[in-house]
């Protein structure tokens, strides 16, 4: 229905465009130059307003209507069964919806039938409201815009103002997204902390992570939400990844920018780009199916016990994933060091290695540090490699050969697990919020470093 309406409104908009344009042409008649705006701008003005009015009302009505139906039916159910849990109310509602749509529901009783009846009436009302509201708005906007077509009507200026506003709105979607992320994370995080009576230290420094085992009447067991093993595991895997990625990425960048011949560069650079373009799920597959068994077997061969979901395997593969990231960012900053500095150093007799070590690297250091910071933030937020290759159990250890779990692994486990969504959401979103804050701080620091560094040579 919504899709059809969207199309119909679009067709209406095109029709409005043609109508207004024709009218402008007629008004202009033999002397089109007397028109303030060219006919197509009269058309454009109508098109824009029909789309804005029609689609805008449609979106508002769809969102508001769904909310209206759900909330009023939920309150109905709540009145009928005040002593049942919220989740059961939701179950009844979805059953009622299934009945009214003619599908098969798990149970059917008088209450469900009654709610189903109300649901059908309300959704019929909703559908009619959608049709009448959005089409009415579109037609009205079209008519108003059409009736304004005149010789002195500044259609171009008006449509350009509309276009500018649209541009502003599209640019502001980034802000909306950020707000959406923060709101959705904060809301659940708040509920989670409420459920553990605001014992923040228990979350940040507790060592037992088993948040779903102590759920009772909406309260969580504060002793079992200690996320320290998760943070430690994340840190361990990130550290291994950076031990692989930083030296390899940095040396590769130095070599490519200051030593390599152009033929080597033309092979090595695309190779690093290919490495960067491989989806993380492929890296995860590689870690879980190839590298982890290899490490376990070679450990066994020399008498060391390596867990099959060891932090080492996940860390190394994550390091490989971050190599191109570090190398391309470092390459940029190393290339941004002015050639004059290099020439000066070479001119006084330094070798290329000395120039790099004592002139280029110190000058590029802030950029390299920011590249490393961005790499760390990416490693912390990386999900698929650790979900596929790291462990599930919270294990507080610094031994890279053991299995550890990470923040992202636990988010996935909680959200995709069998526990009902409302219970698992609290810990999951709190972990997500922690992750968001950590990466945000690191990105800001990195950006600040880069900004400061740029000032020095511009």
């Amino acid at each position, binding site marked *: 229905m919504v899709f059809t309406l969207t199309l119909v409104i679009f067709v209406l908009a095109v029709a409005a465009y043609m109508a207004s344009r024709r009218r402008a042409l007629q008004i202009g008649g033999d002397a089109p130059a007397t028109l303030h705006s060219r006919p197509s701008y009269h058309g454009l003005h109508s098109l824009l307003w029909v789309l804005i009015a029609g689609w805008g009302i449609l979106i508002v009505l769809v969102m508001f209507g769904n909310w209206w139906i759900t909330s009023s039916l939920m309150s109905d159910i709540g009145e009928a069964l005040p002593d049942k849990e919220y989740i059961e109310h939701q179950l009844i509602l979805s059953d009622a919806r299934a009945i009214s749509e003619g599908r098969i529901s798990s149970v059917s009783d008088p209450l469900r039938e009654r709610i189903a009846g109300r649901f059908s009436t309300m959704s019929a009302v909703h559908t009619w409201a959608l049709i009448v509201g959005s089409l009415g708005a579109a037609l009205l906007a079209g008519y108003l815009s059409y009736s304004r077509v005149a010789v002195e009507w500044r259609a*171009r*200026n008006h449509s350009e103002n509309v276009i*500018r506003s649209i*541009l*502003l709105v*599209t*640019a502001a*979607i*980034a802000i909306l*997204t950020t707000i*959406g*992320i923060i*709101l*959705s*994370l904060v809301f*659940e995080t708040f509920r989670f902390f409420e459920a553990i009576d605001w014992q923040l230290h228990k979350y940040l420094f507790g060592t037992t992570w088993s948040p779903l085992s102590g759920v009772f009447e909406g309260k969580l067991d504060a002793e079992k939400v200690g996320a320290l093993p998760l943070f430690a595991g994340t840190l361990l895997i990130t550290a291994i990844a950076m031990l692989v990625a930083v*030296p*390899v990425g*940095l*040396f*590769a960048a*130095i*070599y*490519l920018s200051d030593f*390599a011949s152009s033929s080597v560069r033309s092979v090595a650079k695309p*190779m690093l780009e290919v*490495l960067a*373009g*491989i*989806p*993380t*799920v*492929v890296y*995860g*597959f590689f870690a879980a*199916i190839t590298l982890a068994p290899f490490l376990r077997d070679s450990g066994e061969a020399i008498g060391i*016990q390596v867990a099959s979901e060891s932090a080492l395997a996940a860390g190394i593969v994550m390091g*490989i994933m971050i*190599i*191109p990231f570090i190398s391309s960012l470092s390459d940029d900053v190393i290339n941004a060091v002015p050639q004059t500095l290099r020439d000066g150093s070479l001119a006084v007799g330094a*070798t*290329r*290695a*000395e120039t790099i*070590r*004592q002139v280029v690297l110190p000058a590029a250091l802030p950029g390299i540090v920011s590249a490393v910071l961005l790499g760390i*933030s*990416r490693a912390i*937020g990386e*999900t*698929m490699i650790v*979900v596929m290759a790291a462990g599930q159990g919270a294990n507080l250890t610094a031994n890279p050969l053991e299995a550890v779990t990470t923040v*992202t692994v636990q*988010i*996935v486990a909680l*959200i995709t697990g069998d526990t009902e969504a409302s219970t698992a959401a609290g810990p999951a979103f709190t972990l*997500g919020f922690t992750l*968001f804050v950590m*990466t945000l701080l690191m*990105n800001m620091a990195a950006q600040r470093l880069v900004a400061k560094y740029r000032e020095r040579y511009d």
Partner: protein
Amino acid sequence: MSDMTSQPEIERFDHGSITAVPARLKKRRASEFRLKTYGIIAISIAALALVSLLWSVVFKASYAMTEHYIVADVTLDAETLEIDEDTAADQIVRGDYDAVTTEMLRDLFPMASGRTERRALKDLVSGGAAFELGDVVAADPDLVGETVSFAFLASDVTDLYLKNEYGRLVEKDVSGKLSVSEAAEGDLVISTSTNDFAEALETVKRHLYEDADSLRVKAARQANAVSVYTERAEAAETEEDRATLMAKAEKARVAEQALLDEAAALEDRAAGAGGSETVDDENISLLIKAGGGWIRLSELNRSQARGEMLTGVSLPIENETEWQFFTTTMPEASRKVSDNQIVWIETLRERDQIEEVFNWRFFTSADSRAPELAGIRGALVGSLLTMLVTFALAFPIGVLGAIYLEEFAPKNRFTNFIEVNINNLAAVPSIVFGLLGLAVFLNVFGVPRSAPLAGGIVLALMTLPTIIIAARAAIQAVPPSIREAALGVGASNVQASFHHVLPLAMPGILTGTIIGMAQALGETAPLIMIGMVAFIVEVPTSITDSASVLPVQVFRWSDFPERAFEARTAAAICVLLVFLVLMNLLAIVLRRRFERRW
């Protein structure tokens, strides 16, 4: 630079002596050489990683290249099918084709008896084969009552055995004459005139030693556990803890002793020189093919053996020279295909009833729990629909946003805030976008779960910063003279941007968009958050149907225990990579053909 005053750390050296120069120069050159070597090593490590990653994927995927069929005559008996004249045309497909398939297999191998063996026999053929037979009959109901030749899809176990995934059947040289006679019911006595079994006996014994060794390794682990628990028990704070830890240590000690005893027993058995040796399913299997059938040995010495008949052997055999002796490379207990199944498959192969064809099914069927039936069509269509939604949202919004920021935005704090936001969003972990989609689009706006619509919206928000950043760069690259010329002849700002700057920037914008879309195509974590991990058998037809996408399919399959899914996972990865390569190639072509430098 600012720190000119601080003394740089330079080695003090003797300026007077000219003889010191060569030595110092050597050192300096060596350090230059070192730095260069590190660089080459770094590049090689990256190349090695890339090659081994791609190689392991392609190698594993090669197992999914083909599929096997068992071609056999099947009698479509109306009674077995439970079909009669009254059956409506659309009910024919519901006949009991499973029973017909089972009957066909029993006719092929009448020796199979007992529950396990019959089950194993049935497992040669995929569970989906009966449905395919049903479809064929439903299309041509006249076939009922006839005997037709039909290609039954082989099960994953059969398929993997035929691809040598469960080891090989090695033929041993034999020179003697074989005699076989039945000592008791089902118990065969086998002998050859020369020591034909000697080599196999060696292998069997070696295997016993290897088993003993691995038992000792396990015992050593238990010994380690004993010492750890004892240590912890000594350090335990409460009496209770100590007791439990001591109990654990004791348990580990018992386990260690049991393992050591077992290992010693195995070694004793193996050391018993010359005598006969029993062969159980922990050891390699020994198979003899003679007299038109197969025999499995259960006990042997250098020239004599006992065994049982697997498929019909015409007894007795006396001084036969035409016989073959095979050993497997893997013990029966550690492979999914049993000795019986091997013999059946080998018999079928000999009769030319096995057919190997390219695995088109992988591209034309949707997901399934049975690996031999599973394909990626559903995930491919799901990915396509998701990408369509992503493109439809991210491209216009991204381009318009970039135009605003580059052409119209006033230099104020609000614009600055937008820019900071975009840069930060580009670095937000993808899983957080998944949480946003779950909380806002699914729970508040009621977008259907697992649908390409929800996935597309989330991926669009995720790709948006990439597209905006690329589009801004492309717009910046258009020289100001173009815009000024347009303004000079009387165009408005909007006209100059949309009619002159944007068309020139389009190739760059498209390149950036394609790269952003390629990223989105490989993205998994946010889609898992919005429930696209569900098991979906149907190919989605609209953006509100439940669907899966390629990378999520890879993730799900990689989790399944069946060996055959590993190959299919790798094959799905190959398909995903092919699409990524194509998209990137398109981006490169666009850049090459249309990019203009001013």
